[in-house]
């Protein structure tokens, strides 16, 4: 087997908000075309780590590398153009446009047709076709003509994933795609993620709160606890890891449930 390249890497990454250290000395490397899950209890620093990786926050210490290039000082837009796309926990779509138009706008931007004013937008048939195929990927193809604000919450998340896919970034940072979803909606979104994984051309990093859901999807699992990297390994290793069991699965998780 060809050894996998590291695509995204952090070295001694830390951020402190006042006296509170949210992310403490985290050094991770994400392997190309792998499915990495970041898990941890509430307040473990998962989303903060994502914000650092995608550029929403700048670190107090440490560096971030993308394909060996130091991107610590890059803006979110620059990182997105380099190839790091992310989704947010909060749903963020164009509410009064159709589902298709939402995705089409993302495709159009990716194709760099940004200032064309003379042609009709339907002139670019390929955008619409690509948007439709992306909607198929996220299992929304029967909702193409629906106004986005009329979608159910879970469908909006799917739409957002389609828009993220349209940007064709190599790395996808998915921040709790199942957040705020009803239990009935969760399997559908997992199916979408599985589908993207099966296409096999992207590096996916997924934050998840509920660990059991992503274990069989992940190639590698990282466990964050109190802002520190507690453990990393294959799902099986993580399940057997005593530190993880006591810190996450045992103590805190039960506390959280209680």
């Amino acid at each position, binding site marked *: 087997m060809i050894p996998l390249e590291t695509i995204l890497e952090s070295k001694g990454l830390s951020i402190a908000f006042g006296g509170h250290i949210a992310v403490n000395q985290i050094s991770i490397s994400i392997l190309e075309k792998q499915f990495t899950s970041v898990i941890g209890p509430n307040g473990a620093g998962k989303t903060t780590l994502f914000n650092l990786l995608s550029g929403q926050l700048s670190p107090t210490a440490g560096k971030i590398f993308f394909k060996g290039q130091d991107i610590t000082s890059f803006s*979110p*837009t620059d990182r*997105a*153009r380099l190839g790091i796309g992310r989704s947010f926990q909060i749903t*963020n*779509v*164009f*509410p*009064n*446009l159709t589902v298709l*138009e939402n995705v*089409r*706008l*993302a495709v*159009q*931007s*990716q194709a760099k*047709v*940004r*200032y*064309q*004013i*003379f*042609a*009709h*937008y*339907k002139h*670019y048939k390929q955008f*619409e076709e690509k948007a439709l195929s992306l909607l198929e990927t996220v299992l929304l193809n029967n909702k193409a*003509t629906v106004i986005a604000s009329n979608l159910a919450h879970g469908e909006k998340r799917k739409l957002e994933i389609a*828009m993220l896919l349209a*940007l064709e970034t190599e790395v996808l940072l998915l921040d709790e795609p199942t957040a705020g979803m009803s239990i009935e909606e969760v399997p559908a979104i997992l199916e979408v993620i599985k589908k993207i994984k099966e296409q096999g051309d992207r590096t996916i990093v997924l934050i998840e709160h509920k660990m059991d859901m992503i274990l069989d999807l992940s190639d590698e699992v990282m466990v964050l606890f109190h802002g520190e990297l507690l453990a990393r390994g294959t799902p099986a290793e993580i399940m057997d890891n005593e530190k993880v069991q006591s810190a996450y699965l045992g103590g805190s998780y039960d506390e959280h449930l209680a």
Partner: protein
Amino acid sequence: MQQLRLNFEKSTWIYLVIASLLFILPFMMSGRSIMFLVMQIFIFGIFAMSYDLLLGYTGIVSFGHAMFFGIGAYSIAIVFDLNEPTMFYLIVGVLIAVLLAAIVSFVVGILTLRLKSHFYAMLTLALAGLFLVAAEKWRSVTGGADGFTISVPEFFKDRTNLYLVCLIVMVLFFFGLRRFTNSPLGRVLMAIRENEGRTESLGYKVLHYKVIVSVVSGVVASIAGVLYMLSLRFVDTSVFATEVTLDALLMTIIGGVGTLVGPIIGAALIEFAHHWLSDLSDVHWIFERWIILFGAVYILAVIFFPKGIAGTIQELYRKKRKKRQDNKEIKSEDKMAG
């Protein structure tokens, strides 16, 4: 998709038929005042369309749109005042109006579009006020608050010619702006209206788009100002007044924000109402203060028809089409089941 294309064609045909009816109107009717009224509708229709580019398509609230209208009116008036009113100077005047409007709207765009909604609205209000004061104080050129009359080229002295020119300009702008709003760039404008942050994160530079739409809208508004001056043959500081902006706002909202036909319908309604209700002032004094009535209509429209006339019609049409489609689907499913 096929259906969409057909509908698109259909609406274009409807608009063309209406335009050609308006074309023969001056040859059917001879009433001077009614022709003047329809001409004003065309002019304010153009102006309101340009305002809707900002308000309805991009979601920018400007309270100073009158400044571009005034720039257009004053540019042409001053050029005719200083030179012979010939067709050559008409072109010069239009070019100056367009250029000035483009520069001002560009600067306004750069300076103020970085500000969030209500700060932008306030700043445009202040800027338009600045133009109003400048027009009042710069007596040697503008004639101050009294304004001045000017003669126009022989061609425009004929009411029918002027009417046709206004109509042609409106139709051209209507179709031109329709293409503009349906272009890839135009769709990004709507995205900005819907969710500015998301548009930015898709990789579009929002500021560029806001400046572009600001310039397009400003230039179109200045042409409306030019036509306004040609139709009145008189200009005074009222072209810079906030009322002009508010009229455009009213026309756009009653007609239908986010559509191009809406502002024209709104312009027609308001100009007609203005005309007829003022005539009714003999019946009851309230009709002289017709704007009071319009205030009420405006409030009712915002509450019950937030999409305006054109928007509501479009929505009904869309619903009907969807129903038809759904029925078709159900039928085909039945067939499959059978």
